[in-house]
């Protein structure tokens, strides 16, 4: 049995980072304000004291350059962890991500690999508004050449971060801020959670509910509520979108014959449609009801609490939609 402790999602990230930096001197971290006590919601606090400013680099408000600097540093031997306190600010660096980072290996015919890990935090609630809350995971999953993780638990957050840092290619980890205080049993030792391996978080026979990122916990809560009504939900958490574990999802649907996807992104052209398509293109005739997606509307995020409540997904909304689906 591994020694472990019950810690929060943000502590798990801090833990993984600190461990990685201890294990390899090549690991450096860059980001705005990572060296202050507040430490990006606690995920980087204390690193500056342990590893010094050569390896813990506060960065000017120049997101685009930061990613490019990551690529260059990786070429010269570093393993680079970049932190964006909001994915919205990271959009300034999309050119770097799309035109450089994601195609670096490809362009060099696999000879040059850049271990750059980007942590992108998605805000939610308390009136964050449209410039502080987008979850663009579907965009990055569409882009070739970069792995995409979207961990829902502290255990996965640590394992996927370590795996990303010590792998050879670039990756983006989407972190939903609303998960940061959620606790989980996390092993002390450094371990890996592999890309492309979904996890069945709850077994069930009636419906396969694929849930992404911060909606995993909502899905599990919904499943618990539905159980009372005798509806038996299997909850699958893909954990990574690139690569996407299509097999595990398809296997589950083969059993349940029903597919619902809950995705904290915009509906159209989003992650939910990929997951549905990855099932229907394989075993469409096997399904006994239309697949269903539960997503954000095709809208930017409103500030007002009253509208946030309508905008975001919660367990009860999932319950209602699944009940409606089964009534049909």
């Amino acid at each position, binding site marked *: 049995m591994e020694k472990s402790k019950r810690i929060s999602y943000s502590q798990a990230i801090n833990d993984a980072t600190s461990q990685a930096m201890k294990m390899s001197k090549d690991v450096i971290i860059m980001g705005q304000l990572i060296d202050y006590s507040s430490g990006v919601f606690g995920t980087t606090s204390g690193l500056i004291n342990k590893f010094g400013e050569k390896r813990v680099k506060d960065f000017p408000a120049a997101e*685009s350059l930061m990613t490019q600097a990551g690529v260059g540093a990786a070429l010269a031997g570093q393993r680079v962890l970049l932190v964006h306190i909001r994915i919205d600010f990271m959009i300034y660096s999309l050119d770097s991500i799309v035109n450089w980072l994601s195609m670096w290996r490809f362009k*060099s*015919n696999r000879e040059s690999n850049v271990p750059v890990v980007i942590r992108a935090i998605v805000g939610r609630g308390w009136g964050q508004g449209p410039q*502080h809350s987008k979850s663009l995971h579907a965009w990055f999953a569409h882009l070739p050449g970069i792995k995409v993780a979207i961990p829902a*638990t502290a255990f996965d957050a640590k394992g996927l971060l370590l795996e990303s840092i010590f792998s*050879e290619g670039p990756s983006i980890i989407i972190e939903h801020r609303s998960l940061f205080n959620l606790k989980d049993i996390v092993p002390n030792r450094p371990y890996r959670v592999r890309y492309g391996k979904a*996890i069945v978080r709850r077994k069930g026979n009636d419906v396969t509910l694929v849930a992404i990122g911060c909606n995993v916990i909502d899905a599990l809560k919904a499943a618990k509520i539905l159980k009372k009504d005798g509806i038996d939900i299997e909850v699958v958490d893909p954990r990574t979108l690139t690569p996407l574990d299509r097999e595990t999802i398809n296997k589950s649907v083969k059993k349940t014959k029903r597919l619902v996807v809950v995705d904290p992104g915009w509906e159209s052209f989003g992650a939910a449609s990929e997951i549905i398509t990855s099932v229907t293109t394989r075993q469409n005739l096997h399904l006994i009801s239309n697949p269903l997606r539960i997503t954000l509307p095709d809208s930017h995020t409103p500030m007002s609490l009253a509208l946030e409540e309508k905008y975001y997904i919660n367990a009860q909304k999932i319950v209602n939609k699944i009940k409606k689906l089964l009534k049909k």
Partner: protein
Amino acid sequence: MKKFSHKNISKIGKYKIKIPKRFDKKLANRLFRFMLRLRICELYLEKEYHPADQMKCPVHFCVGEEAIPAVLNELLIEEDFLFSHHRSHGYYLAKNAPMKKLFAELYGKSSGANSGIAGSMDLSYTKKNFFAGAILSGAASIAIGAALSLSLKPKSKAIAVTGFGDGATEEGLFWETINYAGLKKLPILFICENNNYSTYAPQSKRQAGMSIAERVRSFGVDSKQVFGNDVFIVYQELKKAITKARKSRTPFLLEAFTYRQSSHVGPPNDEKVKYKSKKEIKFWKKNCPVALSERVLLMKNFLKKTDINVIKSEIKKEIKSCFDYAKNSEYPSLNSWDDLNLSHNSPLADKLLLDLDKTDFDIEQQTEVSKGF
């Protein structure tokens, strides 16, 4: 003349090139030979390029801009990183990457520098730390990272060098780069080949205020302007800057005024756009790096006409063999799109990390709504 601009340069008429005192003869000849090789290489490539159209790859030729690569070839060491913009051939050769693999790349062959996957704009040669790419100011900004990493290695003398055009300095990313270089005093050398044009648009239509060199200085990065077709002056300035960067790890920008005799990108030939004046073309042809140095080397008797002929025929022979190599190579075959884009090996993770997994999760917790920012 202190402050250069393309306007005042064209007033020079005939540039008076001098070989500096005590300048090593062999070095001077090597510089000349590199430039001549690059020139002939580009001219032959241009000739074969169109209308044969067998290199199906957009190419930005660099005829007229040979001085910088020649000097870099002398001053860079293996460990240095060199990042180039789209006009990449000179920089590629500056890093001693093999010419035949450049040719094969342009033909899209598997023996190319990147197995035909990258082409001229996105050329790289990993073994020699050479990398290029087309998106403006991208190469310069990536160089920052290499410099940052090198600055963490106390024993390293290596530096990061990046070459780009005047147009690249219009991208905001370029100024983020300069600010950071100045702030952190990184061992990085910026070389701006100011050829006055961004495609067809002259600098005056795109930038006002002070020169690129002066702008850069206001961000805390030392800089200098030179007549970029005088290979000896370029050598002296870069020698100084590189020596200093290796020793005291400081950034520097050289703004080298030069001219592209080639089309912006070939084919088609862009003469019909009529964006260059006949007068300026004449001035710059007369004062091109190869012509200038040839003149002074002959004058100083560093070389004789016959020597040059020998060199030329050696180069032509090499180029012919490069064409043969490229044309006779196979087209790439494909094993897996996936593997080409994503690395699935992770030897270090295999060594360092335990394989663990866990399904259960305590769902009796409230997700937090954080207040404020």
